[in-house]
């Protein structure tokens, strides 16, 4: 294979380290104080793409649907080494995974010089996947093979890639996959690279986010949410307070009561 063309799809998701609240409709998150971050496994997808590009030559393009804080994430992608970043504008807000896949499948084609690619990489899951998984939905729309839970990719000869996928208990499976392919990335070979704020700022000054128009209507979900709530807390742990010294003393009591110290 000559130079690699890799496309990475990036999603923003709520940062679950923050407190999440149910919005006034009782069916979705309260967005007022919602902090969004790039989906973690998408960051791994970008890292894997950059590793492969650096190994084999070629280009990495990052595409995301427009939304809050997406510019920062795309500039960060540029600072990490992406060659091209594109945001798709004009899609309705609050897309489900099924809707997102249909918008992407409809819009990618019309972005100048973007397709075809050898590999399309995205995170194998997102914490808001309710009505679908992005990678297999896109693979089916585009007529490409798909494999998920991917942790390593080697580019082979003759239009194939050797792909490693996780099973359980640390067992992995090795596969030969025809390219072009859509792969759901679980983890890159290395932790996603850190990029200093100064470099992101520099990317903002010199870099450019291309814009493309969303094509077509997003698919409507057929797994409608009737209600959202913080999970019931009947089985909640007995809390030992928030003072480290007092809590540690209680823990030691509990452990000695059970013969563990």
């Amino acid at each position, binding site marked *: 294979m000559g130079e690699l063309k890799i496309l990475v799809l990036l999603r923003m998701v709520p940062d679950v380290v923050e407190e999440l609240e149910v919005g006034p409709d009782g069916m979705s998150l309260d967005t007022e104080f919602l902090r969004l971050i790039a989906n973690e496994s998408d960051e791994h997808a970008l890292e894997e793409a950059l590793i492969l590009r650096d190994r084999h030559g070629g280009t990495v393009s990052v595409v995301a649907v427009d939304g809050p804080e997406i510019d920062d994430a795309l500039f960060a992608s540029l600072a990490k080494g992406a060659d091209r970043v594109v945001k798709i504008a004009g899609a309705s807000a609050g897309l489900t995974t099924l809707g997102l896949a249909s918008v992407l499948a409809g819009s990618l084609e019309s972005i100048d010089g973007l397709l075809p690619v050898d590999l399309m990489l995205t995170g194998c899951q997102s914490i808001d996947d309710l009505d679908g998984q992005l990678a297999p939905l896109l693979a089916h729309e585009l007529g490409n093979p798909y494999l998920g839970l991917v942790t390593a990719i080697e580019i082979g000869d003759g239009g194939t890639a050797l792909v490693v996928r996780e*099973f359980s208990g640390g067992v992995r499976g090795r596969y030969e996959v025809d390219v072009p392919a859509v792969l759901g990335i679980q983890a890159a070979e290395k932790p996603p690279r850190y990029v200093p704020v100064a470099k992101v700022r520099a990317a903002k000054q010199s870099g450019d986010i291309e814009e493309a128009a969303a094509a077509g209507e997003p698919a409507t979900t057929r*797994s409608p949410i009737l209600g959202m709530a913080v999970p019931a807390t009947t089985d909640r742990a007995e809390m030992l307070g928030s003072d480290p010294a007092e809590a540690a003393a209680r823990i030691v009591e509990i452990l000695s009561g059970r013969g563990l110290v």
Partner: protein
Amino acid sequence: MAGAIWVLAENWRGELTDAAFETLALGRELADGLGVELTAVLMGSGVSPLADQLGVADAVILVESPASVDGELGAMSAALADLMAEHHPRALLLALSNVSWDLVGLLPAVSGVPLVNSCLDVAVEDGDLEAKCLLYGGKMEVTVRPAGETAVFGILPGARPADAGRRDGSPPIDRISIELRDRAVRFVEYVEPDAGDIDITRQDVLVAVGRGLQGEANLDLAEELAELLGGVVCGSRPAIDQDWLPLSRQVGKSGLQVKPRLYLALGISGAPEHIEGMRDADLIIAVNTDPEAPIFRTADFGVEADLLDVASELIDLVQEAKEG
């Protein structure tokens, strides 16, 4: 058979998995609630001997493939999509495990049938199937009723005890064979994990670290505490992905299932993929700065504080207790 509840009898490397029996147990409840048949779908190469463990089902559809279908997803999803279109089941339940993961994603895409992902539970409500699903790393629960004649449900591990789905007996079998017509993804081999220095499944005490550890430099503290308690350090996915710990120390969906006497979870939020690996520990104590962290729904005891502060205090106190 229209309107039946179907369950994929997940099998891997020649055996039915625990997840298969858990999902079958849930399927049995739903079938009884609706007054319909429970059909187990058994798929793979050379899997027919497994059918006599599927006594919990009323019928078995045996889909035999000429070669291993581990990851031959094109063929598996096409075959299942065809079967669903022919028989119109009310639901197909798939375990949301690493074995069935790709099928959960691909089958709805191929068949056009709605997916309800991350189901903690499914129940019959007013004649409909209603799912409770965990989203946002376990921080929110949503109620979902899928539209359409058939729906695919991805069931989180632990929805029912596996033993509730284990029953010997051979229900009537309907045999179907499939061709591997889409070979764009070809299984080559399994790669076994490196043995690692320590088998965490054999430890009485595990000190588990997650994202809250913040950096490899803080690992020493966890190591010291583990040693004092006569245990070892293990971790959740972020600790492994950041290269703080080797793969042999990973607890959860992709890693190992552990059942120690003590599981001390430091800075682990408790996403469903992690809970799956440690929920059967005898005693679970969790330390996290976030009072809403899902780990506190699984732990016996919880501390809302910084793990580094608590670990330091614990080291001192355990040392004292041992010396005293």
